[in-house]
């Protein structure tokens, strides 16, 4: 399948959903109406978030020098790079869906693949707003164990995956 066909399938899914929701409203089909309402409110939330996020990423791309990223997050930057990327991921907003474009920009700027994957995983492990919320509900012990168990594993797995893929000359798309 070409990229065009895949895009077309995704669009078809959305259009099909639109038709389904419209039909649900005309025949008063409650679950379909509910899906439509959820879709509407989700779209609004995303529209408030996405343009800002993509603007910040583009500003990063335009202003941050490649050498800076290469020096701190590239090959030969060692274990400390994981500390930096954990801090950066901690300050991220949004879920996984916003971590991908950021990770992609980091890769384009010369961050090594292990760091790129660590960023995506860390965005799920240690986002600061998420940690504060989690610990207030589940208790600090819960959060502490979860992080203590996942952080070393994320570093290990990302480094291994990164090395393995770099060996195969894999590059991040877009």
């Amino acid at each position, binding site marked *: 399948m070409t990229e065009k066909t895949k895009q077309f399938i995704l669009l078809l899914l959305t259009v099909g959903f639109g038709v389904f929701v419209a039909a649900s409203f005309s025949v008063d089909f409650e679950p379909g109406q509910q899906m439509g309402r959820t*879709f509407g409110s989700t779209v609004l939330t995303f529209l408030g978030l996405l343009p800002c996020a993509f603007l910040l990423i583009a500003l990063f791309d335009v202003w941050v020098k490649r050498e800076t990223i290469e020096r701190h997050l590239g090959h030969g930057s060692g274990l400390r790079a994981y500390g930096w990327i954990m801090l950066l991921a901690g300050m991220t907003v949004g879920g*996984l869906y916003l971590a991908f474009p950021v990770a992609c920009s980091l890769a384009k700027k010369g961050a090594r693949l292990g760091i790129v994957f660590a960023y995506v995983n860390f965005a799920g492990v240690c986002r600061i707003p998420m940690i504060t919320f989690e610990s207030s509900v589940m208790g600090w012990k*819960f959060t502490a164990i979860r992080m203590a168990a996942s952080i070393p594993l994320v570093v290990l797995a990302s480094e291994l995956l990164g090395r393995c893929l770099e060996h195969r000359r894999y590059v991040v798309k*877009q």
Partner: protein
Amino acid sequence: MIYFYVTTAAALLISLMTSRAKTIAALNLAAKRLLGILPAFAAIMVLFSVTITLLPREVVAELIGRESGWLGVVIAAGVGSIVFMPGFIAFPLSGALLEQGIPYMVLAAFTTTLMMVGVLTYPLERKYFGRSVTLLRNAISLLIALVAAMAIGLLFGEWGQ
């Protein structure tokens, strides 16, 4: 949320004051990329609306709360990987389940996979990392989430009960 807007506005303003040309380039780049991923985003939002309607939080709570022990962990990890739920819904839900006596390790499997594994975000992740790396990344994250849940089960004394 408001900090995010303020930060973006400040960054844009500083950029504009420093270089007009670079700022315009950034705006173009942002618009182009945003349009490029919009079909994938629309698809994710469709999948989200459908799953959240078919699996509302009561059903999720029912699924996670039905089994404790390792089977509960597996079910919770499955549900957490598939559904797509922001933290401000997921954590209060977990808190309520905790009060109902659902073990910490089951809830850990749910929240951790929710944050790290994305079945619904697959169409988007694929665009950046390609199919096989996306599958591999998610499989690794699922494993990490399961290990974290096990660690929580062990240290809270729930494992093997």
